[in-house]
């Protein structure tokens, strides 16, 4: 076992933010390596500040270190100044726990949660001195694994990984460790990497790309299927843990020595979401809803605050105000016996007055900003995307916020959504203007920050067939907003770089033809592409051109019902015909209520895996009308479900015609 620390400490003080590379966090586990164990290096391929708080990685870190047959350390992508220095000094990629070289681990496991980090995966492999392509690795090289939401379409990076894991990782990492540690115990000349991969492919939730054949015809994907009958599943199903109570992780959340994002105690209160927002991949692929019991949440919060010294706790989930009995959890947490005030935050707040009242109670120690995400500017478009917030819900929420002392409110929207017209786009500014009017009742100079993101269609959502807006179309909409917002005092408009949206779009629904594109971009220095100071659209456009690929084929065209999608051989439990029907409903401005409190739509997520929602209360949350079946027939909406087949009609084309 070797440590690179004595080499690193010689130059770390010349490196930007050296604390990124030292480890030593409260909660760090002293790894007990042994030859029999499968040793994992868990990698978040973004900076330390972004990667360290990642709960998924921390959960697996603890589980793997608790097991007898595995051990785990962590690493994050070195910033450009560090990687330059590492190459100059011939220092390989290393773990932050014990500064052990990545090449000495058995398994390099990447957490991929955003498309723009894919080139960082190549950077980490190259710094590890591991061959980039799976086909070039031999028994002495580590196994390269990917997990995280991006593995629901791993095709763009499939050639670089040995396997991908779909869904919840809690159980499957143990199964992989078991198979790996047994394989490893064999005589060295009997070790066969192919055999190992075949064994691992037998695990539910494990996808081994090299076992599949991919066929293209005339710029279109025509099939992905196992090369050999029975060597691999025809369709790889995601993994789902049925009960969160059995997995109270992380038990010892890592407390970093330096500042990171989400620098607070995080306790996951439920997993999954059935709000059914059609643009949201997380809400679709993590179904069904599985709540953690209240008592367990409270005890995790109490223990966590005492152990870490944090004075802020976040109760995390995809829509925390929807937790059964959330009021009770909040009051229990707020009345704890601590020597200093504690702040509580609920991410992904629902937009209504009730939620704001709750937020006001929660923030004793300090008040953070309030962000609401109506996502679209008009009620019509919000029905299309199934984010069933009425204008009145939003106005009640902001009224409540301004009246309780907040002077600044943030609103988040998407542009480039299906069926969007300029009226919808400009509706964003109208909502912001009304919000400011309400604010003036309580403050002299209220302010509203409107953040606008470009919509990227994602696999396993009803919008997976939608042709993404072009860069020009998104820019046109941004200028439209900018011009309308200019005249309004107190309104600040921010927008996401539409060129980055283009690249996200290519990778989001791309296929294996993109591997050489990723390699080219990386070779040209295109790392940290999610950082605006490093993002470079030219690298991507040139690489696409060099490979003879057109962005239109990947992003801008609408896809057909019977077209093979690059993720058709993978499954998140959702029936494809459910998604298609939901897509049709969207085009007909039809919202769909939350199935937690209304009858089942048979999306497949529960029935397919024989599991159910784990929800303590069958009653919708207080104050929340949206999508709960209460008062949903708003603004003269008559709800009629129309079944329709054939190509979508009345689709807004987005600048490119096929």
């Amino acid at each position: 076992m070797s440590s690179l620390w004595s080499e690193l400490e010689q130059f770390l003080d010349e490196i930007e933010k050296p604390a990124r590379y030292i480890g030593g966090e409260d909660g760090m586990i002293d790894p007990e390596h042994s030859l029999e164990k499968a040793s994992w290096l868990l990698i978040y391929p973004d900076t330390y500040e972004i990667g360290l708080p990642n709960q998924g990685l921390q959960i697996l870190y603890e589980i793997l270190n608790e097991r007898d047959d595995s051990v785990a350390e962590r690493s994050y992508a070195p910033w450009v100044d560090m990687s330059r220095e590492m190459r100059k000094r011939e220092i390989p990629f290393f773990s932050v726990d014990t500064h052990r070289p990545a090449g000495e681990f058995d398994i390099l496991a990447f957490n991929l949660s955003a498309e723009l980090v894919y080139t960082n995966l190549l950077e980490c492999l190259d710094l590890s001195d591991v061959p980039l392509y799976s086909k070039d690795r031999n028994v002495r090289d580590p196994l390269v694994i990917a997990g995280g939401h991006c593995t629901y379409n791993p095709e763009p990076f499939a050639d670089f990984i040995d396997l991908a894991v779909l869904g919840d990782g809690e159980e499957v990492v143990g199964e992989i460790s078991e198979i790996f540690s047994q394989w490893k115990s064999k005589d060295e000349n009997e070790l066969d990497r192919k055999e190992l991969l075949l064994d691992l492919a037998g695990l539910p939730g494990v996808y081994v790309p090299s076992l599949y054949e991919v066929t293209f015809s005339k710029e279109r994907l025509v099939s992905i299927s196992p090369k050999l009958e029975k060597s691999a599943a025809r369709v790889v199903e995601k993994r789902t843990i049925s009960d969160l109570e059995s997995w109270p992780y992380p038990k010892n959340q890592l407390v970093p020595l330096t500042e990171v994002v989400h620098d607070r105690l995080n306790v996951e209160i439920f997993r999954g979401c059935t709000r059914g927002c059609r643009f949201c991949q997380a809400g679709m692929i993590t179904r069904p809803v599985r709540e953690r019991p209240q008592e367990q949440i409270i005890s995790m919060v109490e223990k966590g605050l005492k152990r870490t010294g944090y004075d802020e706790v976040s109760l995390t989930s995809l829509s925390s105000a929807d937790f059964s009995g959330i009021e009770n959890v909040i009051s229990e947490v707020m009345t704890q016996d601590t020597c200093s005030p504690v702040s509580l935050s609920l991410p992904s707040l629902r937009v209504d007055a009730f939620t704001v009242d709750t937020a006001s109670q929660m923030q004793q120690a300090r008040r953070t900003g309030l962000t609401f995400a109506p996502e679209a500017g008009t009620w019509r478009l919000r029905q299309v995307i199934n984010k069933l917030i009425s204008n009145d819900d939003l106005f009640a929420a902001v009224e409540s916020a301004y009246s309780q002392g907040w002077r600044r409110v943030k609103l988040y929207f998407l542009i480039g959504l299906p069926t969007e017209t300029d009226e919808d786009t400009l509706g964003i500014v109208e909502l912001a203007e009304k919000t400011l009017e309400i604010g003036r009742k309580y403050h002299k100079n209220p302010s509203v920050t409107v953040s606008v993101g470009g919509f990227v269609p994602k696999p396993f959502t009803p919008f997976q067939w939608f042709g993404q807006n072009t860069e020009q179309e998104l820019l046109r909409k941004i200028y439209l907003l900018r011009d309308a917002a200019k005249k309004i005092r107190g309104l600040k408009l921010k927008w996401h770089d539409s060129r980055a949206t283009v690249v996200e779009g290519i990778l989001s629904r791309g296929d294996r033809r993109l591997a050489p594109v990723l390699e080219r971009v990386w070779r040209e220095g295109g790392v940290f592409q999610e950082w605006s100071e490093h993002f470079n659209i030219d690298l991507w456009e040139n690489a696409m051109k060099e490979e003879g690929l057109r962005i239109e084929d990947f992003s801008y065209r609408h896809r057909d019902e019977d077209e093979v999608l690059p993720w058709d051989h993978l499954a998140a439990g959702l029936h494809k015909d459910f998604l298609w029907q939901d897509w049709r409903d969207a085009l007909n401005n039809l919202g769909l209520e939350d199935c937690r409190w209304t009858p089942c739509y048979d999306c497949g997520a529960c029935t397919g895996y024989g599991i159910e929602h784990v929800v303590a209360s069958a009653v919708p949350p207080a104050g929340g009308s949206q999508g709960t079946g209460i008062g949903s027939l708003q603004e003269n909406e008559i709800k009629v479900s129309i079944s329709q087949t054939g190509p979508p009609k009345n689709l807004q084309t987005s600048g490119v015609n096929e």
Partner: protein
Amino acid sequence: MRCLRVRYTKLGKIRFIGHRDVARIWERTLRKANIPVLYSQGFSPHPRISFGLALPTGFQSEAEYLDIYLGEDFFLDGFDSRSIQENIDNSLPTGMNVLAVGIISTSEDSLQETVDACVWEVRVSDISVEEFKKIRKKLLSSKSLNLQRERKGKISIEDVRSQVHSMEITEEHVDGVTILTELGTKPRVLRPTDLLKRINSELRTISVLRKEQLTLQGNQRIEPLSIGLYPAAPAEVLA
């Protein structure tokens, strides 16, 4: 109102965290140790703690100080400095340890005001022992030493000779020396690395350790803790 003044270390890997990181660690540490720090008033209250002279990232220290503002209740019956010291020490990360605690009245000078000099141990390399001895002699016999300094984008030239109180070679190595040097902190802190670079741009500093922060009263050197007054430091006074 009184303060608990704490002397602590910053040694090993943790030397690479910045001053703001240290402040955040202290806030969490005091909550973990259940020390009832006073909070500031206002929309966003924060614990009232104040630090002395910032230590550059990458330097180690055996002499960092912190003042913790506490209500009078804290110092009444049952105040046990030993158990408080242990309690805080156990809540700190590896590399940070409490060496001593003392009680300070808030009417006394702040840490920044009260400290006049720091004693540094510096490991210097890329220079022969003979060569370094010559440099040292030249420095100590000089009348002035102009140093170009940059502050808030403005460049100024300052004579820092009077801030160099002493410099001794404590160890000789094949590739350099270890020195102990006392440098004045007023009007502005003189960093040992800046001084060494000025007197010879070739040499390299491998490690820097702050050994002491001192208040000067004539020939007396006093540690800025009201308890545990120190005798004069071993270094000779040159200025």
